[in-house]
C-alpha cells in the first residue's frame, strides 16, 4: 500500500466539515483502497484538527491524490498541514476503534546503528503492551510541515483508554523506548517536536 497521512490544522474551524468532505471525495475519486478522514480527539498534541489517512494500491494514485489535496488545503481555511507519504501493509482497521499516529524526526546525523535499535525497540512495543491491536512503524518517502518527518508510528486501539492508559503507562514505553526521545538521556536521537494525533475509526470510505 502507498499511504499518505495528513494532519490538518484549520484557521477557521467552521470549514472543517467541508474540508473533510472534500478530502473524502478526493480519496474516492482517486481510487483509494481505504480512507480515514476524521476529527482529532482531545489529548492530541501538535496533532491538528483533522486526520486524513489514505491508502492506495499504486504510487501514482497516491501522488495524484496528494497533489489534489494540496490544492484543496491551500485555501484560507487551513492554517497548517503536516504530511507524510510512506509504504506499508494495508491497515487492519478496528471498527469503532481508535487510530493513533506519531510523526517524528530523527536527527540527520544520528548513528544508523542507533536508528536501527530505536526502530527495533519501537516495533517490540506491541509485544509488551497488549492494548496495541495493530501497528506499523514506517520510514517516510516524503514529508512536509513543521519538520522533515523521518518516521511514522501508527497504532490502533480498541478505544482511547488503551492509548492513554497502557500505552503511556507501561514501563517498556517510558523507562525504555522513551530514552530515544528524552533530551535528558544521552541516547536521544529524535527531535523534541512531535505530532501525536488520534481519532476514532468510524469514518472509513
Amino acid at each position, binding site marked *: 500500500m502507498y499511504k499518505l497521512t495528513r494532519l490538518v490544522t484549520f484557521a477557521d474551524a467552521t470549514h472543517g466539515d467541508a474540508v473533510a468532505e472534500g478530502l473524502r471525495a478526493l480519496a474516492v475519486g482517486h481510487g483509494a483502497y481505504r480512507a480515514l478522514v476524521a476529527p482529532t480527539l482531545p489529548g492530541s498534541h501538535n496533532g491538528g484538527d483533522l486526520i486524513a489517512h489514505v491508502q492506495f494500491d499504486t504510487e501514482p494514485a497516491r501522488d495524484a491524490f496528494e497533489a489534489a489535496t494540496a490544492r484543496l488545503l491551500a485555501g484560507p481555511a487551513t492554517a497548517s498541514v503536516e504530511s507524510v507519504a510512506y509504504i506499508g501493509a494495508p491497515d487492519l482497521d478496528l471498527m469503532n476503534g481508535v487510530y493513533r499516529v506519531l510523526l517524528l524526526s530523527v536527527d540527520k546525523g544520528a548513528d544508523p546503528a542507533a536508528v536501527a535499535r530505536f526502530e527495533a525497540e519501537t516495533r517490540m512495543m506491541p509485544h509488551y503492551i497488549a492494548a496495541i491491536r495493530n501497528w506499523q512503524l514506517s520510514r517516510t518517502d516524503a514529508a512536509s510541515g513543521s519538520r522533515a518527518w523521518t518516521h511514522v508510528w501508527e497504532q490502533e486501539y480498541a478505544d482511547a483508554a488503551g492509548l492513554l492508559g497502557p500505552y503511556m503507562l507501561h*514501563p517498556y514505553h*517510558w523507562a525504555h523506548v522513551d*530514552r530515544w526521545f*528524552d*533530551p535528558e538521556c*544521552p541516547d536521544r536521537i529524535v527531535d523534541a517536536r512531535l505530532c501525536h494525533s488520534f481519532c476514532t475509526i468510524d469514518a472509513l470510505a
Partner: protein
Amino acid sequence: MTREAMIQVIDEIVARPGAAKALLDDYLARYAPGARDRGMVLEQILVSPPMWLDDQSNTLTIRWSLRDTAAWWRMRAVGGNDPDVAAWWAEVDARAVSRRRSFAAEPADIGALCDV
C-alpha cells in the same frame, strides 16, 4: 503493597580525567535545584573509586526517586521541554567521557508498574 517512591532515576557519569569533583559540584548547584522542582528526590550520590583522581576518570552515580509513573511523566514533560536542561546536559557531555541515564525499580514494584 507499593513503596512511597517506586521509580529510581540513575545518572551514571564518567567524568573526564581530573574533572569529577568540579562536575559533581556543578551538578548539585546547577542541575539539582531544577530537578527537585520537577519532583525528583535526591537519594544517593556515589563516587568511584572513592577518591578524587586527578589524572584518570571518576564515575559519578547519582540516584533520584519518583513516586510513580505519573510523577515520571510530570518530570519528563517539564524537563524535556526546558532548553536550559538540554543545554546543561550538552555541557555535561562535553565534560564527560560517557554518560548514561536509566530508570529502575525494586523487583517487588515491577508488578504494580506493569499493571496498566
